[in-house]
């Protein structure tokens, strides 16, 4: 083993350290810098393909939804309508429905009745303007229907990609999973910029103009309820639902997270969610849990209710139940 090293630096003059600057080194340096800059410009060239106005100063300066004045929000919604018309050829009506007083939504799904037809997942697409690569592309639908083996409620042996001629299949049952709008929601806690939060009627929403696209909320969600726009949404003009809400089903920008909002553009206007209306077996029940006479209240009080992944403790507002 050698002794402790001695790295004593003797004082040096500047001339000893630097090579003198002369015509030759100056030219060499300039040439090197030019090549470097040219390389950088060439590398950044793809940025020229950005659509004009895709990132405007207004967008960059826009405040969080909850800090916007009503006038600002109105101006932004009008701008978004125009932008949608320009990009997708359809002019939607974007509104901003507020939560109602004395309302907390709850959703229950009858596992005895569900046959796994996936009509709810398709209705979700038709209502919420998700991106799709082809007409029946369910990858961005907020509802995943799981085909489960009879005998247990075991997610590990379930599949979302079943594709038989007819449903239900023998010895299978079906469990649609969508956002559970948890009371103690992990997704809203982890967001570093508070771009997602819970409204007072229990619906968890995303400000698509504030989300930075870090996808931490998706990692936090136990129900795989969130979808990310890996590219600018593709949707045919005739497939666009024009009744849109700022916090819900307006066409998303690329690079943000979206999710089920219990169709708040419908439910805050007194209608049922699209997935409930389309269900052919009547397996879905939706309503105000604060209303003692509501159907959802009856179900929660009188049926055998099951909460998916109850052990992770997120207190969902979405319940499964069984008929007997």
């Amino acid at each position, binding site marked *: 083993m050698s002794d402790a090293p001695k790295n004593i630096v003797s004082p040096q003059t500047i001339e000893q350290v630097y090579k003198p600057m002369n015509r030759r080194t100056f030219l060499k340096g300039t040439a090197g810098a030019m090549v470097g800059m040219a390389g950088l410009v060439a590398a950044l060239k793809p940025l020229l393909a950005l659509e004009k106005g895709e990132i405007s100063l207004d967008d960059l300066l826009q405040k969080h939804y909850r800090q916007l004045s009503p006038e600002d929000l109105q101006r932004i919604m009008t701008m978004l309508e125009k932008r949608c018309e320009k990009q997708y050829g359809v002019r939607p009506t974007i509104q901003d429905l507020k939560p109602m007083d004395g309302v907390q939504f709850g959703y229950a799904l009858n596992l005895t009745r569900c046959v796994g037809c996936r009509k709810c997942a398709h209705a979700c697409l038709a209502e919420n303007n998700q991106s799709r690569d082809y007409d029946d592309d369910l990858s961005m639908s907020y509802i995943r229907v799981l085909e489960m083996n009879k005998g247990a409620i075991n997610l590990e042996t379930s599949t979302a990609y079943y594709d038989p001629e007819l449903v239900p299949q023998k010895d299978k049952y079906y469990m649609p999973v969508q956002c559970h709008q948890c009371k103690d929601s992990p997704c809203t806690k982890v967001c570093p910029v508070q771009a997602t939060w819970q409204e007072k009627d229990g619906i968890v929403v995303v400000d698509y103009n504030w989300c*930075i696209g870090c*996808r931490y909320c998706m990692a936090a969600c136990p129900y795989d309820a969130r979808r990310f726009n890996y590219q600018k949404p593709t949707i045919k003009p005739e497939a666009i639902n024009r009744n849109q809400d700022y916090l819900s089903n307006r066409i998303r920008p690329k690079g943000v997270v979206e999710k089920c909002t219990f169709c708040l553009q419908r439910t805050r206007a007194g209608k049922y969610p699209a997935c409930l209306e389309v269900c052919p077996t009547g397996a879905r029940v939706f309503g105000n849990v604060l209303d003692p006479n509501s159907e959802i209240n009856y179900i929660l009080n009188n049926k055998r209710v099951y909460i998916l992944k109850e*052990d992770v403790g997120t207190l969902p507002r979405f319940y499964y139940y069984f008929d007997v």
Partner: protein
Amino acid sequence: MRDYLTFLWRVWRVSWQGSWKFYAWMIFLSVLVLVGVNAWARQFVQGLATTGMTDQVSWGAYIANFTFLVGVAAAAVMLVIPAYIYKKDYMHEVVLFGELMAIAAIVMCLLFVTVDLGHPERFHHMIPPFGIFNFPGSILSWDVIVLNGYLLLNLHIAGYMLYCRYRGTAPTKKFYIPFVFLSIAWAVSIHTVTAFLYVGLAGRAYWHHPLVPARFLASAFVAGPALMILAFQIIRRVMRYDIGDKPIFTMRMIMTVLLRPARPQRPGAVDLDGHCAGCHWAAVPGHAPEPPYRRAEHRLRDLFCGDLDREGHGADHPRLCAVAAGPDCGIPADPE
């Protein structure tokens, strides 16, 4: 102050000078950087779909790289502790390399996060007063603080030490010793907070385990010195900088001790982050055979004592064992 700026300017100038090997290497690296910048520019325009990665892969791939680099940065303290706490003079010659590596690793961490964002141009949403910083609610905001704090600490320490060397004066203790000790605690915090990025997630039951941070640190403190040994070997061959053998032997000793808690253990013996075959569900609520505090205690003991009682070769680091488990462990408190 003015002198310090002159120093920085001279560092900048001298960093452009070298032999043809230096230029060849820098050109090679610059080309790699430009290829990366180009890929990122494409991704910025087209969206993250450019990579073709799906939900499960995309976040995981970036965060795994990020975590690895946080570990490399945290491992710089494996040079700092022998130098400043155990006062090994020979480590002072190399401790600067550890700090500089930490700076490079943290910069890469921050770049990994940036390229993973769907909307990097909205980054200011995280910075008050332009945006909202969700602290202390989001553990990600903790990570932003500890990583940038560690970066600043190391920039200060490394910058000050180099400046003193440039001036030919001895460093004044009050300008760097408090920061050195702060950086030791801070290094532990960066990897702990990063581990809790996963541990706290309801959706990721696989990671629900109290000892993930300890395991992360243990493996980082093995991987970091390993990287430093490689760096030392290269430095002493290509540079006129005498490192000697002692720092390398110290690194080797640290690795030997920490390999025990860092290495994957045999199935059945409880693994730290529950990653061994067949037993990871023990860490999931509803699957746990015993309450969490008991689990933590057992695993702490397993971490430091290994399977001593069963196979009798757990005594390779009795000192740690005695510290962690006390007399229960059946090992004399001081083997020397």
